[in-house]
């Protein structure tokens, strides 16, 4: 019998959507960040959202994790609208997702172990021993075995991110969100994180939505890429990293993936695509 969905599924050929974003518009006052953005996140895939600074990647992520309400549109998690959900339903959704924030966002007053134990003791009735074993396993998964009693301030930037991933994975979430995965990290640590993402995705089949600028990371980890644009106020490209690099005709997409300055004048770029 084939193992079904949940954390086990890694059958992207079926393209079963786990999150559906429908006609999403985000606005700060009169300033439209993006409008009418629609896409789907498929089970088991690693979806990377890219775009220049200020194009609304982080806003999109915040709406998808229920921290911000959109001006219009919906985000559906397995068919349930989370943008208009009650706090109780939103909390249930939040138990099915894990989020790694840019700085790791570990609670500085708690040790690494206490950080990871927090969701486990809050949402399960496991014994202290069982929680302890799960923490050790999660720390082993992110190569931080033995660091349970360290304070976040005693960890390096990369270690903090890995501890953040361990905390985000504490409840074995269906979807993991990463904001600026490798921002501010050295290349070796960034590669370690990339490998961790690939390993976790392959082993557990966890769906991942990642916001990043790092081209090398994108080529390595992304199954699919969405590109947002500040001027177009929306999505301008979607595809595998290779497709976007080799086949894109839009100068904005080409300049991003080829790491070149756009050659076309700004007015023209606005209307391309």
């Amino acid at each position: 019998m084939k193992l079904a969905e949940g954390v086990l599924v890694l059958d992207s050929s079926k393209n079963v959507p786990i999150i559906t974003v429908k006609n999403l518009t985000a606005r700060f006052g009169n300033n439209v960040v993006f409008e009418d953005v629609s896409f789907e996140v498929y089970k088991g895939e690693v979806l990377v959202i890219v775009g220049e600074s200020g194009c609304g990647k982080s806003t999109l992520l915040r709406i998808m994790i229920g921290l911000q309400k959109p001006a219009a549109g919906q985000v559906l998690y397995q068919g349930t609208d989370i943008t208009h959900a009650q706090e109780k339903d939103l909390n249930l959704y939040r138990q099915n997702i894990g989020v790694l924030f840019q700085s790791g966002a570990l609670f500085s007053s708690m040790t690494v172990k206490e950080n990871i134990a927090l969701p486990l003791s809050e949402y399960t009735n496991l014994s202290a021993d069982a929680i302890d074993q799960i923490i050790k396993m999660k720390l082993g998964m992110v190569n931080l075995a033995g660091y349970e009693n360290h304070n976040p301030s005693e960890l390096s930037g990369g270690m903090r991110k890995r501890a953040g991933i361990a905390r985000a994975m504490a409840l074995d979430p269906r979807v993991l969100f990463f904001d600026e995965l490798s921002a501010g990290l050295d290349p070796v640590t960034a590669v370690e994180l990339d490998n961790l993402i690939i390993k976790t995705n392959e082993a557990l089949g966890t769906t991942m939505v990642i916001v990043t600028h790092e081209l090398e990371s994108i080529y390595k980890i992304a199954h699919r890429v969405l590109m947002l644009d500040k001027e177009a106020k929306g999505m301008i490209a979607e595809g595998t990293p290779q497709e976007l690099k080799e086949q894109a005709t839009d100068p904005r997409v080409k300049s991003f993936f080829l790491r070149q300055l756009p050659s076309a004048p700004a007015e023209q770029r606005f209307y391309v695509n």
Partner: protein
Amino acid sequence: MTTPLKDDCPPAYQISFKWEDLNLFIYLAGEFGLKNLNAFTDDIKREISRQKAQSVTIDLSEICYLDSAAALALVQIEKGSVSRNIPCRLINLNDEAKGIFSVIHEDALTHLPFHSEKSSDGVIGQVGQASLYLARDFVNFVTFIGELLVALAYTLRNPKTLRGKDVLFYIRRAGVDGLPIVVLIGLLMGLIMAFMSFLQFKQFGANIYVPALVSFAMVKELGPIMTAILVAGRSGSAFAAEIGTMVVNEEVDALQTMGFDPVRFLAIPKVLATVIVVPILTIYADLAGILGGMIIGITSLDLTVKTYLTQSMKTIQVFDVVTSLIKASVFAGLISAIGCQRGFQVRSGAQDVGKYTTSAVVAAIFLIVLTDSIFAVMLYYVKRYSIL
């Protein structure tokens, strides 16, 4: 909202046990995850301990949902069984299940923590630690006062280096914004004091002394102390939190690397602003207290405004007002200095900011009371010798 599993996946887990002689076969089907972890591990352990098995085989072929916590629980059941000399095997794992089991590293589970958990010292140890902390704290504060005076001297010699806009900003924050609460509390204290003393004095027909008591107490002690405590709570804590957050965000390091002295840049405007506004606030508090007393005087004591004010003026001397304002300035210096010093002591994280903000207020109140006692004794002798 739920997370539906596959259509043909049973809504809950199912476990069937089969004994062949003394060999136990356990067949798992359905969903195995964090939510039902306690239940299914209890079921399996109960069956294993029911009678001494020669071997245990756990068949995972019908599992349709498994998470890493459930996989870990199965591995531990396997290990527990093996440790009791009962061979145990997990069989019929497909590729996805193998993937999940691959994240469980034996080394990580048995790895000893690099740091042991922090254990608390005994009573003697704690007293010792607290004493050392107090001593260090005193030295740090005195050192900071020294740094502050050096920075102040530099600013006085080079007035252009003073950040005037910042001084005005903190004058507004600590002074203008704090005025309503200072006046309100002063007024209420005057009211309460007049009312309570009226209740006692009326027994002796000494109502005429109520204005004297209220104005004397307000001007000499309560006005400066109350204002100082309010400023410690409002502004001392704000200074500590502001500088502390700047330390956490490495803004103080940035100032240093740009060649600025953080004490001169951050603390001097705050200290100067506080020293300027606290005496002014004290005057307002004194006046509000006298006004509060006057309200009771007029409504309950049948005194006229003129009588009340005359009685008040008789009691207060210029010496009292001047020393009260000097005292208020000293309080202001201490409050702002301790607020800034506690801010600079923050090292990392939100908890440190909270700790030192609290400490700034507590230490400021302690210093206010201590300094007030010193002033009381000192002023007694100053007045005595000046009379002689």
